[in-house]
């Protein structure tokens, strides 16, 4: 696998949310506004990249690896929990509004299956550089997916897209043009389930179609040859 493939697989073919269906709790909870999704993405990038790097370094040091192997899951959890605590403290100190709106989902990054999953499945068996690339790809895949869902929800539910604090894109003129109100159900919990359900169905439909097209092409090549 080249470095580019390693990076892109997290975003497309092995996307943690749309393909593997991991980490659905933060996906549904923090996508009420684009701002929250961006904040969550930055936190996850920080934790996942550093945890992949540290765990890969531990497992590639012969002495440490022998020591750690029998209790590796608790060790991973301690590494991840420490990084999450660092993120929590930084956010509390400098980004208090974001800290309040993400709330309980910052400490819950610890039990996000994506992070422990990458530690166990990738970082423990690959070189530090590859692990960092994998971490960046996976966390970007997660981030782009939650940003997509939050754009969908915030646009339909409030008619605006909040990028950072007062930096907003006002799209309410579209609703004014159609003479309807924004549907505030999409900001509420039910909207989270509906949005994810529809986006998932659209992605499944697209992949099914491209698969069918590829199969057809192969058939043509065979019949011609």
């Amino acid at each position, binding site marked *: 696998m080249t470095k580019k493939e390693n990076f892109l697989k997290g975003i497309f073919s092995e996307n943690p949310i749309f393909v593997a269906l991991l980490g659905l709790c933060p996906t549904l909870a923090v996508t009420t506004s684009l701002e929250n999704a961006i904040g969550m993405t930055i936190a996850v990038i920080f934790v996942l990249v550093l945890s992949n790097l540290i765990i890969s370094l531990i497992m590639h040091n012969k002495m440490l690896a022998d020591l750690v192997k029998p209790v590796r899951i608790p060790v991973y959890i301690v590494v991840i929990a420490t990084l999450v605590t660092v993120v929590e403290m930084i956010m509390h100190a400098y980004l208090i509004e974001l800290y309040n709106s993400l709330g309980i989902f910052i400490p819950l990054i610890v039990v996000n299956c994506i992070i422990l999953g990458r530690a166990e499945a990738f970082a423990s068996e690959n070189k530090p550089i590859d692990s960092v690339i994998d971490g960046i790809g996976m966390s970007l895949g997660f981030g782009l997916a939650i940003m997509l869902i939050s754009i969908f929800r915030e646009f339909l539910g409030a008619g605006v897209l909040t990028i950072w604090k007062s930096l907003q894109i006002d799209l309410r003129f579209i609703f004014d043009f159609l003479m309807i109100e924004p549907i505030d159900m999409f900001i509420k919990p039910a909207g989270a389930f509906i949005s994810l*359900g529809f986006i*998932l169905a659209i992605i499944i439909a697209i992949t099914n179609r491209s698969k069918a097209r590829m199969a057809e092409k192969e058939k043509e090549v065979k019949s011609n040859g």
Partner: protein
Amino acid sequence: MDNLIALAFSAFILQNIILTQFLGICPFIGVSTKRSSALGMGLAVIFVMLISSTVTWALYTYVLEAFDIVYMRTIAFILVIAALVQMVETFLKKVSPSLYKGLGIYLPLITTNCAILGVAVLNITNGHNFVEMLVYTGFIGLGFLFVMYIFSMIREKLDFAPVPKAFKGTPIALIVAAILAIIFSRFGGLIEWIL
């Protein structure tokens, strides 16, 4: 007393852990395909949640707060929960093999279930005292079991429903969950009517 009833009701229905707080979505989607497994998972969650919340609450009040090291909360909680789940599993295996047979396969899954850590942290951030903590945790657990069971019954029927091909499986399950969430959010007026 009224206070406790309100807390119990809101934990059970209004702030339902799955449908409004989005904790424990993984088992909600993953383990709810059969009624028996939904029941087993729900009972295992109630069991572990009560034990772990009690222990983490005590740990926070008597150790972390007493020694002024509350920033260790996340690390301490997750380690305690992971160890506790392991201990419960070993203990059940020895003491009650029949119960272990029923709940056993769900126990390892619970360590990475965000509902357990989530409720432990929520009890702290909401500032519950000991009795409130017990009531809140118990009813949150019951709410989890209740929604899991309803959802699994719907999903058993859903397997035979003619849905578009792209919606088969998880997407249609999520849309059914959305309808359940709407129903649960409409119970808001009921609590004022009761009290």
